[in-house]
Each structure stands twice: as structure tokens, then as C-alpha cells.
């Protein structure tokens, strides 16, 4: 009996060590967590007055999952202490759902995806960042513009912060953890607001110089 107990205990311990990588469900079509924009859809970047669900045209919006082991200092993706989540060394970037306006689907869809550096069953802070395709298609394009200013018009927004214990625990693995929910996760839908490019000072100076040149030419004539 003792040998059997010991052998089973060893097997159990081995399984616990083997199930290391956590999984999350980067996905939502539930009405409680849908994403809106503050535009009417009449033109990307036009700050409308009517709030509506994010359009479901394929690849018109992108999302990145940010995570943090420690409590973030703010929701700011650059300064709040966040890192972009990755799977297999590639950034986790999702899209707007093509079947339901306001829905999101990312890597793994409803089945979920393993996240690099996130141990199964451990808890991390999470937030989602969303933007329209007019601003770019990669997270690096967005971080660049967050630092220097928007270079084109579009929509951008950040979800509320949640805390999620990842799935992938044990054998069979526990299901991929939901990012959205009422038990500490991202608890509501959110809005992507219109943004517009801000002319840089050098651009303004060039405009002023051009105007002065025109005036000078006119006076000489």
C-alpha cells in the first residue's frame, strides 16, 4: 500500500510541475463587455456625438493584452508598469469580432491561449488596449504614437483593470481563464474615443514660414 501511495504521490507531483504555463481566453461576445466607439461610423477619426458598438467589419480594430504582476500605477500602457502579453514570443493581438458588433476575438478564440511568462493558476493584473486600424496594426506602432502623438485619425481606448488567475492548472488542464467577468476580471465594456493627429511644432513653423514666404512674394510683385 505504501509503495502505491508513494508512486501516486510522485506522479501527482510530476504533473503539477509539468503544467506550468497559464492560459487565458482573449475573447468576448457577451453583451456586458462589448466595446463601443464615440463615433457614428461616418468617418474614422471624426468625433461624433453618438455612441455605438464597435463596427464588425473584419480587421477594422485591433486589441493588445497588457499584463502586470504587481499592481499597476495607472492604466497608461507606457508608464503604468504594463508589459504586452505574448504567446510563443509573439504579441497577443486580437481583432474586432466579425459576427457581433463590439465583440473581441484574439489568439485561441474561445478555447484560449497560453501566455508566455504567466504560470498556470497565478494571478496577474490585466487590461486591454484597443485601436482602429487607421492608427496601425501592430502594438509597436501604437506605443510609438502614444509617445510622440497620433500620426493619423482613428479611435483608441483602454479597458478597466482586472485581475485574472490563469487557467491551465493540472491534468486535465483547467479551462482558459476569462478576461471578462464579475469576480475581479475586466468588469465592463469600454469605449474607444476618437483621436486626431496633433501638428508638431516644426510642422507649425513650416506652415508659418510658408505663409510668410507667400506674403513676401506678393509684396515684391
Amino acid at each position, binding site marked *: *500500500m505504501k509503495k*502505491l*501511495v508513494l508512486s*501516486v*504521490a510522485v506522479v*501527482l*507531483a510530476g504533473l503539477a510541475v509539468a503544467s506550468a504555463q497559464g492560459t487565458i481566453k482573449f475573447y*468576448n*461576445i*457577451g*453583451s*456586458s*463587455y462589448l466595446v463601443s466607439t464615440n463615433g457614428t461610423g461616418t468617418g474614422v477619426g471624426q468625433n461624433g456625438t453618438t455612441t455605438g458598438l464597435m463596427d464588425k467589419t473584419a480587421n477594422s480594430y485591433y486589441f493588445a493584452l497588457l499584463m502586470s504582476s504587481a499592481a499597476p500605477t495607472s492604466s497608461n500602457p507606457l508608464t503604468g508598469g504594463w508589459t504586452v502579453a505574448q504567446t510563443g514570443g509573439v504579441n497577443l493581438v486580437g481583432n474586432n469580432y466579425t*459576427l*457581433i458588433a463590439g465583440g473581441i*476575438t484574439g489568439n485561441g*478564440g*474561445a*478555447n484560449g491561449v497560453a501566455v508566455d511568462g504567466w504560470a498556470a*493558476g497565478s494571478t496577474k493584473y490585466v487590461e486591454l488596449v484597443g485601436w482602429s486600424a487607421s492608427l496601425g496594426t501592430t502594438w509597436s506602432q501604437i506605443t510609438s504614437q502614444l509617445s510622440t502623438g497620433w500620426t493619423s485619425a482613428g479611435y483608441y481606448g483602454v479597458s478597466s483593470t482586472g485581475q485574472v*488567475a490563469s487557467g491551465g*492548472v*493540472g*491534468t*486535465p488542464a*483547467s*479551462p482558459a481563464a*476569462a*478576461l*471578462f*467577468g*464579475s*469576480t475581479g*476580471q475586466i468588469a465592463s465594456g469600454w469605449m474607444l474615443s476618437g483621436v486626431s493627429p496633433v501638428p508638431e511644432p516644426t510642422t507649425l513653423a513650416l506652415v508659418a514660414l510658408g505663409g510668410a514666404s507667400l506674403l513676401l512674394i506678393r509684396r515684391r510683385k
Partner: protein
Amino acid sequence: MKKTLLIAAAALAAGVISTQAQPVYSQNVVGYVNQKFVGGQYTQVSVPLSVSSTNSAEEVFPVLQAGDAILIWTGVSYDTYTYFAQGSWLYPDGVTLGAAPQLKVGQGLFFQASATETNTYVGSVVLSNTNAPITFKGGVYNLVGSVPPIGVSSLEDTNLNLPLQAGDAVLLWDGAQYQTYTYFSKGSWLYPDGATIGVSPALSVGQGFFYQATADEQWTQNMTLQ
């Protein structure tokens, strides 16, 4: 998953309960369910019958052999109880030996058989859980099953009475991985491939499943036999 749906119960129900004018909340209906477990595989199970006042795992699974295990969902992971001999189970800590865990009717769990075997559940049918409905918290997984021992061709079946809302997900274990079906609207489910929209999957008698509600919901079953 081979099953036999309550032949005895059906016979009794036809003869006895159809004469009742009022909804039936409790009947002393007994029956049995057969369920096959493949050796070395995990099977998603729901306890289909009340076998005794304690409903211990040994009473629920009379087929138990040394090395069989049941995995009880804690909300984030599993507590594994491994059967050695009558009254002797290895507890989740991997050290403690103790008595069989008690199970509720409709409780979902994984059964891991050490060898292929067929369990025959024998006990009373429970038709209602109105005295203790199940609360689903939004975003949380619950490993559950039907309280009445029914197999349904659709998860929208009124006897199953799941509190379906758009975005709710049902995860069925296929022996190797979960198959996630997401409820979209009546008659319309998103299939595991993430692209196909189709009708609801079926559920066997005694089959457990994970349910993930998109928001807080309550699941009540109150079946009447005609």
C-alpha cells in the same frame, strides 16, 4: 458515451406520474444509468442519481478499482481523490488517506479510470433543485451537470433550463481537450473552430460540462414527468 436512460424510471413515470394533476417536485422514482469509462482517459461526468443519504463516491461509483480517481473542481483547479480500497482514498494533498468524498446529484467532475470499465449508477431520480439553485458568477467556470438524469439533443432543452445569455460558453471534454460552444442566440451557437455557427450540441445522461456565464446568472431545474 454509452448510456441507458432510466428504463425503470421511465416505466414508473409512465404509470404513476402521468396521473398527477400538479407539477411533480419529488417522486420516489428509482432507476439506473450505465456509463462507460475508458482506461487511462478522463471522462467528464455528472452524478445522475441519488444513491444514498450520503452519496459517497464509493456508492455512486460501485465499479471503482484501485487507481481510479475522481477530480473535483474547486473553481480554479482540481482536487484529486484516488481510490485504493474501500474506505481508503488518497486525498488531494498526496499524503492523507481518508474516506470517500461525498458527491451531490448534478455535481460535475472528472473520472479517471485505471482500466476500461462500465459504471452502473443505481438510485433515486431527483427532478428539481429549486431548494438549492446553482449560482453562476460572470466569467467563472462551473463544472456541472443536469440534476434530473436526462440526455438532451440541445442545450436549449427546457428541461435542462440553462440560463443562456449571449456569450455564455459550454465546454465539453472530448477525451483529449475541451470543445467550447458559445451561445449566440436561440438555435445559434458558435462552434469550437471560432467561425462556424450552428445548432446546439447534445448532452448525454450523466455527462458533465463546464459552464461559463458571461454575467451573474442562476440555474434552476424543476422538471415534471408527464
